[in-house]
């Protein structure tokens, strides 16, 4: 008889990281399946093939990169390493963030960057400080933003339209209606048969997947709830100052990968705080950055960079939330409320500034017209 020594406890709930990762993979595949249908319905089989090639390239690159890293850098058993490193999830998320007409080689380069610089150099699974997929996307959007695959049919996306043509302000209700109607109204935006980043279009499906993943304890419900809730409130304040209706905050939620980021990227446990208070503050901060980058930044989209920026603040949030959790509830409530109110105030101020700016532009335009008219009269 052999009595094995093992430090207590000697009992386990049976939960497993593999299971969590498999659940997450299933959620991502459900979203991917919708993207395939979306491309097939809208643009036909050519786009579907390109989409599948992108996905295959991304996943294969991730796995091969990790195999190579394990074999030549770490010098461990490569297959076992890849199995417990879950690189394919990074690859799937990265591809889902791409526009459909992205060519293949940026996907490969971005995936390698995401896996190696985003994750492996930090020490592999669990040690990275940035969301690796977001880091990879940032590289692709910075260096390959004009790289487009030939023969891929695509149309303008809601975010590129509203940022490019309107600067995220559509005060005239008639124009707003006309703008929304090309995507089938807000309902059409929620259902998702339009062009956008591959995985971001069907907000409804993403929400369902989010709820399911929360119920099975794969992601924490607080993050998507507070992120999306705060985006709604912040964009509502901005929109209200500029005379836009309730469609505006809903539009903010439904487009530009807000729901995708909320469910699959912000919730990445490795790169968000471990305490609930931290998660709540983290989500509100990310929401503020998302809306700010959208309405005032030079980028069309804010989800990606808001995630990367908040990732940088995680160590600081963790430090603030150190200690015995139930003793500091007052402090956490205060921090959350202050963050939220500061965000509201900031959005209000940004809205007023934008309004003044628009008014000035209008005055200048009117003056010009007046000058022209005077000149005409004089003639």
């Amino acid at each position, binding site marked *: 008889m052999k009595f094995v020594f093992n430090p207590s406890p000697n009992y386990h709930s049976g*939960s497993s990281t593999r299971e969590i990762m498999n659940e997450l993979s299933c959620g991502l595949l459900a979203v991917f399946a919708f993207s395939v249908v979306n491309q097939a319905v809208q643009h036909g089989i050519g786009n579907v093939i390109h989409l599948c090639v992108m996905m295959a390239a991304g996943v294969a690159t991730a796995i091969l990169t990790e195999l190579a890293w394990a074999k030549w850098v770490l010098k461990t058993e490569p297959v076992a390493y890849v199995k417990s490193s879950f690189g394919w999830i990074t690859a799937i998320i990265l591809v889902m963030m791409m526009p459909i007409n992205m060519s293949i080689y940026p996907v490969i380069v971005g995936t390698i960057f995401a896996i190696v610089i985003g994750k492996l150099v930090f020490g592999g699974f669990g040690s990275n400080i940035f969301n690796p997929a977001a880091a990879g996307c940032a590289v692709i959007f910075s260096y390959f933003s004009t790289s487009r695959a030939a023969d891929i049919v695509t149309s303008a996306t809601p975010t590129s339209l509203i940022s490019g043509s309107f600067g995220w302000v559509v005060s005239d209700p008639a124009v707003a209606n006309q703008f929304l109607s090309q995507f089938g109204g807000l309902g059409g935006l929620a259902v998702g048969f339009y062009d956008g980043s591959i995985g971001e279009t069907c907000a409804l499906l993403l929400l369902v997947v989010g709820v399911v993943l929360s119920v099975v304890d794969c992601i924490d419900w607080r993050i998507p709830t507070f992120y999306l809730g705060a985006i709604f409130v912040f964009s509502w304040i901005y929109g209200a100052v500029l005379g836009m209706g309730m469609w505006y905050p809903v539009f903010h939620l439904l487009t530009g990968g807000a729901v995708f980021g909320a469910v699959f990227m912000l919730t990445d446990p490795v790169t968000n705080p471990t305490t609930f208070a931290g998660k709540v503050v983290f989500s509100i901060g990310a929401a503020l950055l998302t809306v700010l980058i959208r309405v005032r930044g030079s980028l069309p989209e804010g989800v990606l960079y808001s995630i990367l920026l908040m990732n940088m603040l995680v160590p600081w949030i963790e430090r603030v939330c150190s200690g015995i959790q139930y003793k500091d509830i007052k402090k956490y409530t205060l921090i959350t409320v202050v963050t939220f109110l500061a965000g509201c105030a900031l959005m209000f101020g940004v809205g007023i500034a934008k309004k003044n700016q628009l008014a000035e532009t209008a005055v200048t335009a009117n003056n010009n017209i007046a000058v022209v008219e005077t000149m005409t009269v004089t003639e």
Partner: protein
Amino acid sequence: MKGDKIMSLFTGAMRLHVDGRKDLTNHTELVKIAAGKKVYIPLVNMNSVKVDVLVNEGDHVYVGQKIAVRNDHFTVPLFSSVSGTVAGKEKRMHSCCKLMEHLVIENDGLYEKKFDMEPLDPETATVDELVTFMTNMGLVGCGGAGFPTYVKYKGVKGIHTLIINGVECEPYITADYRAIELHTDLLIKGTKTMKKMCGATKAVIAIKESKKELIEQVQNALKDVEGVELCAVPDVYPMGWERTLVYQVCNVRYEKLPSEVGIVVDNATTAIAFAKCLTTGEPIVDKYVTFSGEALNHPANVLVPVGVPVGDIIAELGGFNTEECYLIAGGPMMGRTIPMDKFVVHPYMNAVTVLKYEPTETLGCLRCGRCVDYCPSGLQPVRINTANKIKDVDMLEQLSVMSCIECGMCTYVCPSHIQVTEGIRKAKATFMAAPKKKGGKK
């Protein structure tokens, strides 16, 4: 993983339903085990070995005779569990996984009893008399800690509630259940007496709501008893921990001891043992101990004299069914694995769990925060482990590393099968070894 999930925004559930596997021993027959030729009385109480032996080699002793006494800041007498001859001292493995002195007594098989104390009527005795009686009886916390019970009652003031802990939240253990079932009258007598001793206006007996039959039995017995009520508590771990239980029953938290908020907590088996002392004058010389686990042929509750080696009891029960196993003194969450079966039953042991050996695969920490979510102390085990890796003592202090009770929850819930609890033990050692800052907070 779900179960008891309290929807609180900033704190986790701080507790979790754990599969108790209580059915293994809940309804099996109680097995009475007799002492062998020799019994070994551990000369130790909690972590103190400052024990004076009162008998010499060759002396004749009786059942219930005081043979030694812990003599430092606490006074805890130790008793012989058999009658026979003192055969000297021996260093043996103890259930704390260290070698300890044991007093060896050769059993003459006659079980002649001779008690040092007369029975005491709690109705007529004064509080001081009862506390003295409790001290002389060597009554210790039978929930597994072995803390001398009299300390909680000596000179206490401002107590309003006595909580009798019959929760038994560790998986596999059913010894308390069995003791309450068999001695409901003693439980009530002990509870009433303890209530009188601490001056509480109310006594609450806490039992898990899943133990329906037992609740009904106790409730029936309590019909005509005033000031004692039963409280059914959720079937979650660690409901039996003092802080969790006090929070559940009275909705208050405290800094160090429950007496700060006017509460005394004692174990149900301690109350039963105390009532037995009062009735017969007999100290704790035998124990109900659960022998359970998948690696045993016949899991059962046993009634066994103190000082009988665990290996002998398991052999008598029908032995092991595997070649490799974890032999755990206590339950699987907090109990220690002991690498040999020579350790003996002591007055505050309530279970031995024997589990099949299963190697596990450890993955990287994904910082999912489940250990934070379920930590009953509200700590951040994941960050304590990280801080210990870089030996950041200031951070360990900020993270209140010493508030950890090593309940095992963090390892239990860790999806990556990391030994988080063991990591915190190491962090505590780091923290204790580090030089304290001058004038710093303690």
